[in-house]
């Protein structure tokens, strides 16, 4: 019911954290694949959510 709030929190949270994320990313040096690992971890979380929750109405 409160998914819109979740979305707003997610977007604002991502926006606020983005300078720190970009700084961390820029400090990667030779670990150029660092963002891809984070990306992959996010996909893992999304896969876990999709498996564990029943999305009604779809």
């Amino acid at each position, binding site marked *: *019911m*409160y*998914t819109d709030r979740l*979305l707003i929190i997610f977007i604002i949270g991502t926006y606020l954290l983005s300078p720190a994320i*970009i700084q961390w*990313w820029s400090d990667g040096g030779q670990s150029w694949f660092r963002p891809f690992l984070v990306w992959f971890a996010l996909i893992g979380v999304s896969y876990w*959510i999709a498996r564990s929750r029943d*999305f009604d*109405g779809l």
Partner: protein
Amino acid sequence: MGYSFYQLFAITVGYLLFLFFVAWATDRGMLPSRLVRHPAIYVLSLGVYCSAWAIYGAVGYAHLYGYNYMAYFLGISGAFLLAPILLAPILRLTTTYQLSSLADLFAFRFRSRTVGALTTLIMIACMLPLLALQIKAVAESMEILSGASDPAYVAGLFCILITLFAILFGARHATAREKHEGLVVAIATESLIKIIAFGAVALIGLFGVFDGPEGLNTWLVEHPEMLARLYYPLQDGSWHSLVMAFFVSAVVMPHMFHMAFTENLNPRALITASWAVPLIFLIMAICVPLILWASLKVQVTTPADYFALGLTQHIGGQASLLAYIAGLAGASGILIVATLALSSMALNHLVLPMRRVQHSDNLYRWLLWVRRILIAATLLLAYLFYLWSGHRHSLTELGVLSFVATLQFVPGLIGTLFWPGANRNGLFVGLVAGFIIWLFALVLPMLVPSWQLPLALDLLGVRFDAPEEQWQTVALFSVAVNGILFSFFSMVTNTSAEERNAAESCAVDSLRRPYRWELEATCVEDFIHSLIEPLGPTTAEREVELSLRDLNLGRNETRPYALRRLRDQLETNLSGLLGPSVAHQMVDDHLPYKPHDEDQSSEDIQFIESRLELYRNRLSGLAAELDSLRRFHRQTLLELPMGVISLGADAEIIGWNLAMETLTGISGRRMIGSRLSNLPAPWRHLLLDFASGDVPRLPQQSLEIGSQTRWLSLHKSHVHGPTPGERDGGQVVVIEDITDIRSLESRLAHNERLASIGRLAAGVAHEIGNPVTAIACLTQNLGLADDANEIRDSSQQILEQTRRISRIVESLVTFSHSGGLPSHSHLPVTMHDVIDEAIALLQLDPDRRYQKTFNECDHSLIANGDPQRLLQVFVNLLTNAADANPDMTPVFIRGKQHEQTIVIEVEDAGLGIPEELRHTLFEPFVTSKAPGRGTGLGLALVYSIIEDHGGSISIDSPISDNRGTRFTIELPAYVEAVAE
């Protein structure tokens, strides 16, 4: 290895024919349905996002702007990671209301043709650079590989091929309700090909140039500037705008909207897409730096946009074909799907609203041909745009133009999903303002070098000296202006009730509150007849049949609720055929509601309930608690052991519980949404008369059902609407089946009569004994008599004695008889005669025969009732009076008429009624007599009979000196009108 132009052209044709075959085989059912509807096919079809810009332009962008290239892939990944929250509501809307594009969605939500047309025009404008980019990418890649000198000619041929393919497989059905399975599978195949080909090019770079990951690491250590060039642009601050632009474009761009929502064959596949789409784009994104670094190491000579081609050319062999196929797959996919989507938008929002649909039988064919022409026109426009600007600009520049333009739809989309207060005026002003800024501050400066910026912008300090470098400023500025104007005008201008209603149905987690308005059409045939004028007879018939099938309704449907649903479904289906604006107008014009007052309408509770049932698992927190409460109350009402009917103000049945189903044998599913007048006999007359009458209750109502008589007790109450403005006048009718109680009462009454007869038996024997003795004597005398006169006298006396016996027997029979008259007949009853009869009966009882009873009722007092049952009343009352009167003081019965009421008082001067019994005296088995003297049923029966007659009974005891009891009975007086 080089390729000639003809070889490449043949490869292109061959590739498109292969796709043609895949689509054809799918449409012919050669692929199993399970595979076609598998989530993997849906996920791969979303790879249409990966256009030639991803294959070629992303490498060029990474070369110029470092890691910023990832925004393209991260944007769509973010959109799909949030799919259950962000995309699922859009999918629900597009599926429910047959909306096939963003323009459809906006036109439906804002109830405006203008908004639909404006969205279409802006969408076409913003897609032209992206489509031109695809044409340019294919033409230039052929030029690079073959050395052909006229890319415009190549591009033209390519456009013709794509037009044919798009028409053949994308525009075969006129309506959006038909999914293009062949197209979906073909696009999925294309995505698979480009992912494999692009990955293969990256692997060739990694292993062919660097000898594997170790070699790459060593090279990067030796060339730290390569990594620095990737990291450095991250600091310039454009990251946010980039991700946002690509995030939005993944949802609103017509090709994405078409594949994600319109062609969705399996809604649950969206959940799989939430992780699988980001995975595909992660793989694609990793390939980009590998191709870039490998190209830089071998120093390819092609422009950075075409490094993939240059690298594979450098490696040699057939490798360059892989890069070409990847680019071709990316370009053809988006060109086909985007032109299909744009043609639908143009048809629904530009052509149909302007040109009145001819009501011919060939509507479907006409629509199909217009769509085909629009597909060709769209591709022609893209080609002309390419000819005009394509040569001078890089893939990156063209791509940026489109992606920034799509941002203009962000405020509208957010308003559609999350802000029911947004209105069409706000959207219109915001879109126009954003579009103008995009056009004048980005498009014209970039494409027309001679264009001078308006002075006003210059004065505001917004400078776009190098628009391709500062596009993020334009993006943010245009979206900010758009959003502010959208919000401002939405707040200060009025929103129509119709728009508010549509807004409620679009808003996430909101439940539309439809009103129960009455349609002018009263049956399905009326629907067809009304739609013949705009659609033609064949189309009208077919669309109504399809809608009936969608709703699982029969052709003979007449329930108002079902007809309202049919109207909604027709609008939805016509929306898939003609677009929401035209469909809405058509349904409004030809299937109108009866005139109504919007502020005083009842909500369609049945529809709201069905929606709540559908979405109940989505509710959480307070909403879930309220829903549980609702279900509890509903279940209580449903399973109440009495029949309950809820009626709307217009007598439409909105509730019919299980007890009603048992009682009537008519299911709630059949009755809900219909009217009482649709009920079968004999219920129709009973309930219609009761619901429309003034009497709030019918305590005893007989109903002949088949060969059985059922006794019912009916009550009704008016229901007031929950909100002050809402029309009240709805009713709730409660029906109790009292047949069993009546039967029990009859048995009790019969038993009571038998008990009375038992008590009277001794008196009867005595009464009959005397005349019998007299007859015996007379008969003896008769034997000895010889005089004719004496014989005649004796015979007369014998006859007299026999008549006396007959009278006694007749009295007893009358009292004990339960049949004779129809049950509970209402006849004129002379109270004096009934009371006399009761006294006569009482005289038969040896214990009570000496009780003096005075009948002071006038012969003029005539009640309306059942004489036998009233006789029972007075026998019981007089028996009680005699029993409570050991001194044998006289009992008086007096009567009078007060208006339409007969009042009878039975008064004794006996012992009176003990105080503890007074309140329970009329309950069964309550008695003050000694054990064995009374059953305790007498007064209960009296009460029941008087109630049945619509009368009342009361007691005064003691009357004076702690003695005496007075029963006062009120009965309706007999009048001619009542009898009739």
